[in-house]
């Protein structure tokens, strides 16, 4: 029997880790983002991506969308801990696999190449509603909206066609159908 020198218990088996999208409605006030993010870092939760902006100027409400991973127990804690924060109004929690929820991320991709390659690049991201925001005869800035893994794939595929810079947002989420969460 090995002797433990710690009076703290040893970590037990971890449960299955899922990806969840947590949506938080908060008062748009100073340091509110820091409270939310500080909760995640302080308690050792994960943030895969983060998107935040004011959504209702009149009510002074911001909506924070956080993609996170964790065991069911950790996800439950995240939601409950967030609800305790004073500026937090409401917390939504969706599994990434949830068919009733749309998740989207946006990316701006800068291609520096000849027009032929730029065309090929455009073709490669045809599925993700590409919009050309800027074009010269040796460059283009393309906007796409897609899922995280799709953007991962596209950026990888675009490397040979002259992708030099990619700027990406965190995921935002919305429920399908007439149903609204708030």
């Amino acid at each position, binding site marked *: 029997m090995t002797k433990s020198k710690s009076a703290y218990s040893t970590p037990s088996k971890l449960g299955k880790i899922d990806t969840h999208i947590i949506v938080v409605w908060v008062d748009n006030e100073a340091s509110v983002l820091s409270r939310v993010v500080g909760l995640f870092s302080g308690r050792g939760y994960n943030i895969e991506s983060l998107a935040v902006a004011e959504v209702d100027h009149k009510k002074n409400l911001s909506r924070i969308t956080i993609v996170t991973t964790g065991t069911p127990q950790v996800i439950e*804690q995240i939601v409950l801990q967030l609800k305790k924060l004073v500026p937090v109004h409401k917390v939504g929690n969706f599994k990434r696999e949830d068919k009733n929820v749309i998740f989207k991320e946006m990316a701006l991709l800068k291609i520096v190449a000849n027009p032929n390659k730029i065309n090929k690049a455009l073709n490669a991201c045809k599925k993700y509603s590409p919009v050309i925001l800027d074009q010269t005869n040796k460059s283009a800035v393309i906007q796409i909206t897609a899922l995280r893994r799709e953007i991962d794939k596209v950026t990888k595929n675009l490397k040979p066609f002259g992708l030099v810079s990619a700027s990406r947002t965190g995921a935002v989420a919305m429920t399908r159908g007439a149903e609204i969460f708030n």
Partner: protein
Amino acid sequence: MPKLFSGAEIVFKCLKDQNVEHIFGYPGGAVLPIYDELKNHPSIKHILVRHEQGAGHAAEGYARSTGKPGVVLVTSGPGATNVVTALTDAFMDSVPLVCISGQVPTHLIGTDAFQECDTTGITRPCTKHNWLVKDINDLPRIMHEAFEVATTGRPGPVLVDIPKDIQFAKAKYFKPKKKIKLKEKSLNGFKKSDIDQLVDLMKKASRPVFYTGGGVINSGPKASELLRELVSITGFPITSTLQGLGAYPGDDNQFLGMLGMHGTFEANNAMHDCDLLINIGARFDDRITGKIDEFSPKSKKVHIDIDPSSINKIVKVDLSIVGDVSDVIRSITKTLKKKNLNLEKSNKQKISKWWQQIQKWRTKQSLNFVNSDKIIKPQHAVQRLYELTKNQDTYITTEVGQHQMWAAQHYKFNKPNRWMTSGGLGTMGYGLPAAVGVQVAHPKKLVVDIAGEASILMNIQEMSTAVQYNLPVKIFILNNQYMGMVRQWQELLHEKNYSESYSKALPDFVKLAEAYGCVGIRAEDPDELDEKIEEMINTDGPVIFDCHVDQDENCFPMIPSGKPHNQMLLGPKDQEENKITGKGKALV
């Protein structure tokens, strides 16, 4: 036109409207306008501490012994950073504190001005909420909200950071609104069906146990009364966490003693073998549960707590009831009485076997120690202190370490709010300032800080506060010249390598007491102990009692290193017996 008030005046108007009578603080540049205003408000008494950490702990002691929020006033920069330990302590142990800190003027924020620090940034993780007041018109609302947040739901510390220019600026004042927006933050919406389900479980149980915690104390004295009634009509055994001591009488036969790492053999075994575990206002702390995978493996678990995030955080429970302990217990008792009038008898029969088992565990007498007539044993000192003070309403605070556990094991509490100790954070240096705060709230009562010689030196400067305000706190030091708990772990877990746990060059505590202008008493012989303790109690004024105790004494029983409840390490006598059978070695 309505009258305009300065920020400093508004602070005091708010404090008055919140019925604040005492504030603990230390002045400094950025908080001077508030201090200047103090003279105009004779109903509020300011207690000048000697270090801001002391102010925080004193306010904690005040809050815990009264149930009212403690108020702290400090300056910017070092004033604020010094109070961080106390805020974290209050956060861990759910103590309502309102800390007001000065800040450099708004136009200097962010310029690394003299005594500037990011106070709200630093205290964000150790408060329930904090505010930086940037507009004087927000000040009345924020102040009232601060009290609301600190005292509702699960109580805790809050901080209001007020820049110096805001303290001078003028605005209208308004009284607190009836209901400030804290919707959803204080949940008390448990369902009748939850209670029915619990009563059902209680009826079916044959090996039940109540496991109660600080939530009962925080719910107010009424909760303790209701708990006593519930325990009495069910006939169930009850154990308590460190923070919950006093909610149920420590000398009652149904009380199994404290549970956890240094809890009693019977309490921990009851937790392990029970078939129904009812947690009332406790949080499954790791010093309580031991090894989580083997925690109370055969039981249905019920958790009653006001904080929804406490539920399923550590231990998955079968039934959760989110609500204020008083309300929940009242509802349980009512339902029990309605459903089964003859409950007391039928239940007691049903669980009589369980009680027989508990009696067997009790015969181990796990709190026993080998007493000596040559040297004072620390447990003996606490027992004598208890025997000689139990005839009066005594308030006990502690520092952190072996002496704290001995105090918890051997001092029996019969009322809530009489026991102030740093449990969650384990802050050495808590006890003396906490005793100061308790004594401020209860000037006529006996207040004793059971201390260790290492802990007491961490905030010894507060003796000066005690002397200034003539607060007759008694500092009862169990002096073994070691950081005893560190030494114990080094003995048991680190091959007796007593690395840096011995204090050379300790002060002469009797002379130290005299230097502070109070009385010092030393006891070195078991024969003189009682007499000296009497002398301490009868001294009218603060006392430092230097009780020289056995240096080698360890705190038992103990759940060692990530072990479950039923693998406790008992005292030296039991260890010897185990050694003979060969089991002893495997235990540490």
